């Protein structure tokens, strides 16, 4: 087995060189969905690393390639990051094969952030569907960790079936908290006999819950169809597009506005996003 002779140490580190991350914990969330907790192998990396809610990174299995996911843990929890992914392609399959203790790569953080500091003193309404909870989980925990800065926190989360709900333990935790209003729902037919949550599509549940738009920021993440059907509901409830946030998941390779993949009109999702308000999206071509 050959090792690579290390070249003369470059003056700067290439942006394409990932941090070496050790998988500290693997959690099975749902069928083919896992969460990795990743710790920096090099303490210097850990010390230098900082990020904010909404950012993403490129996770890599050496020999298989890179894949883009958000950072699913909040910046308030130091010393590690978490990512949640569904096994669909070459990289995510290879990732899913990794185990605790294995080394993978991460480069980031990339992209813009949720302006949570501007949300101080406001109500927060989180609406998520399926595997789109992870990008929101980062913000939810970030805000819950700074709970006193926000007013009411309402979470509506739905999945196709009970099995497809991710972060089941945390859902229970949020449910138990008096300072969080959690509404979980599954699509009709997706419930189990002992399911205690709601049954119905997310937009319908939002309408039933009927949160007030007054002084409220809505954050919506989910499959395109869910977003499409949720927006009219929010509009009806009185939400203004500039108070509704989402994150886009366009395909990316570089993460830093070079590879040419992710742009929506003139905006790079990797640089100008992934967080957008619907007021911004309204002015963009529908290339997402």
């Amino acid at each position, binding site marked *: 087995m050959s090792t690579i002779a290390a070249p003369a140490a470059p003056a700067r580190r290439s942006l394409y060189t990932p941090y070496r991350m050790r998988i500290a914990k693997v959690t099975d969330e749902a069928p083919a969905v896992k969460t990795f907790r990743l710790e920096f192998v090099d303490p210097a990396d850990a010390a230098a690393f900082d990020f904010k809610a909404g950012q993403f990174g490129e996770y890599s299995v050496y020999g298989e390639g890179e894949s883009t996911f958000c950072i699913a843990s909040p910046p308030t929890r130091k010393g590690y990051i978490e990512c949640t992914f569904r096994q*669909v392609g070459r990289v995510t399959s290879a990732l899913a*094969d*990794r*185990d605790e*203790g*294995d080394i993978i790569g991460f480069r980031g953080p990339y992209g813009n952030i949720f302006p949570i500091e501007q949300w101080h003193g406001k109500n927060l309404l989180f609406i998520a569907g399926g595997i789109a909870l992870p990008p929101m989980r980062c913000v939810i925990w970030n805000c819950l960790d700074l709970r006193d800065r926000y007013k009411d926190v309402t979470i509506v989360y739905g999945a196709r079936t009970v099995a497809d709900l991710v972060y089941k333990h945390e859902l229970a935790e949020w449910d138990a908290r008096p300072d969080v209003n959690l509404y979980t729902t599954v699509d009709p037919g997706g419930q189990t006999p002992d399911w205690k949550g709601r049954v119905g599509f997310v937009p319908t549940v939002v309408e039933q819950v009927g949160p007030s738009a007054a002084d409220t920021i809505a954050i919506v993440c989910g499959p395109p169809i869910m977003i499409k059907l949720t927006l009219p509901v929010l509009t009806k409830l009185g939400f203004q597009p500039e108070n509704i946030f989402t994150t886009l998941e366009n395909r990316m390779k570089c993460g830093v506005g070079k590879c040419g993949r992710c742009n929506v009109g003139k905006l790079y999702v990797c640089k100008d996003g992934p967080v957008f308000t619907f007021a911004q999206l309204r002015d963009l071509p529908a290339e997402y």
Partner: protein
Amino acid sequence: MPRIGVFICHCGENIGATVDAAAVAKAAGELPGVVHAVDYKYMCSDPGQNLIKEAIREKKLTGVVVGACSPRMHEPTFRRACAEAGLNAFLCEMANLREHCSWVHEKLPETTEKAIDLVRVMVEKVKRNRPLFPINVPITKTALVLGGGIAGIQAALDIANAGHPVVLVEREASIGGHMAQLSETFPTLDCSQCILTPRMVEVAQHPNIRLYTYSELESLEGFIGNFKAVIRKKARGIDEATCTGCGACIQKCPTKKIPSEFNAHLGHRTAIYVPFPQAVPNKPVIDRAHCTYYRTGKCKLCERVCPTKALRYDQEDLLVEVAVGAVVVATGYEVKGTDFFPEYGYGRYKDVITGLQFERLASASGPTLGAIRRPSDGQVPETVVFIACAGSRDPAKGLHYCSKICCMYTAKHAMLYKHKVHHGRPYVFYMDIRAGGKMYEEFVRRAIEEDQVSYIRGRVSRIYEKNGKLIVKGVDTLLNSRPVEIAADLVVLATAMVPQPDAEALAQKMKISYDGDRFLNEAHPKLRPVEMNTAGIFVAGACQAPKDIPETVAQASGAASKVIGLFSKDELSREPVVAVVNRTAPPLFSTCVGCFLCETACPYQAIEREEIKDRNGNVLKTVARVNQGVCQGCGTCVALCRSKSIDLQGFTNEQVFAELVAL
């Protein structure tokens, strides 16, 4: 990272003497993904297997590689051990360190190096293994038997007697087949009909057998355990339930001069007829091509005389759908006609007949009531020439094969002739006498020695008519090729056995394979002689190859026992090493583009077409689907698929690729 356990067996000294098993285990232990690697004296022993089981439990292994003997030897053993420890059996692979390494190489560092390579290759493969589960296919425990000759009758009775419903389909108006036409059978000379007709009656009366005569297979779809057959019940022109088989209609029918198929055109029948008196069922059919009513619109004499008013002139063909789990094909054979032979007069000479016609002449129920009289003038022939190998074994005629029964029945014919015409002179032209079989050689010897049949070894080059005699010209190759010329009164050609004229069409309809002579191809000539390549379809009798009655009956019973074996379980459980067509997210649904070039490559017709529809039922795409009940897992389709949309479980592209990368 996967958690692979590697277990290296010394196999006593068998591996250990040439391969450093400990070194192999050590090297394996350093491979990425390997969390456990040990060597042991006898891995297949109970303690050895326990090593594996314990490691699976304790180290939470996700895959196991056993470096030992050939997987063809102990793969089942180790896979079972894994399954017992809770690891899916298909997550276990073997590296062949004995047959492919220690036994074939000297004790050299290279040999241990090779062993390490072999283990590494399997480690990389097993990382890509996925749990597989046996495929269970429900079985409809009803058999379809095609052909009501002796093969079909035997198969149907055997299956029915085992308690399973049977649908027996016969093209002609009666079951019985060619055997019903025969006079006596070799080598015992017992009466063919005497042994056959009781079985025919048994079929008719059997509670488990549904009999469709005058019927044909219209279509066959599905797969083993789950076929859907459509049977075309041709219009008989009578109501079978009402008809009592009294025969009054036949008596009165004005059209009487139709050549009788049953009598091989040597006798006549009427337009409404039963093929022969012992027919089962004994219900007539109307031959619409010859019936006066159908031709002119007037007659209906039969209706007038019918005591039960059973005639139904406007009856139409009926399509009957039956669900069956297995099919026995027993569609039999035909013999070449005399018109196939220009050198013997193209069928122009009335007194040049086929062996089958001679059977009818010799039969007590035949047109001459068993008297040997020649067709042209009804005279008793004084000299009869029998020619064996008429067509058979003759590449010039396009028939390379031996028809197998001609030697025997020619001897029988000569003998029967001699028994009936004591002063007659029988001659037999032959190429070789093939009399392999119990009492067969003795039978031929009896013909030659006791009945003084003159056997002449040689081919007949020509037959022509001269002064009311048939001049048979040939050579005697045992007498320096001396020309022989015999003035005969009757010539009997042992014409070649060939498949039914529509054998090819039927095979295509059933998607079963056939050879260049249009005989059906068994799955394996030695080991699977009664199975077709298409699972669930079996073969019996002369539709597969020329054979005599005992062989036919034996094969029919063999096919029946295969069917009974299949029906002995409610579900068919199969190894999951089968091909699968991928499915992906919409809008692609599958990377398969539906070119279906794999369809013809599949030796088992396991590729089906699946329509992917939207909510409104509009077809969005047609893609291939592998019928897992039928697929045998050869992987020919996988190699053929350009877009890599089909993969073979257990030997997936990823697995094989990983093996190569690991080399």
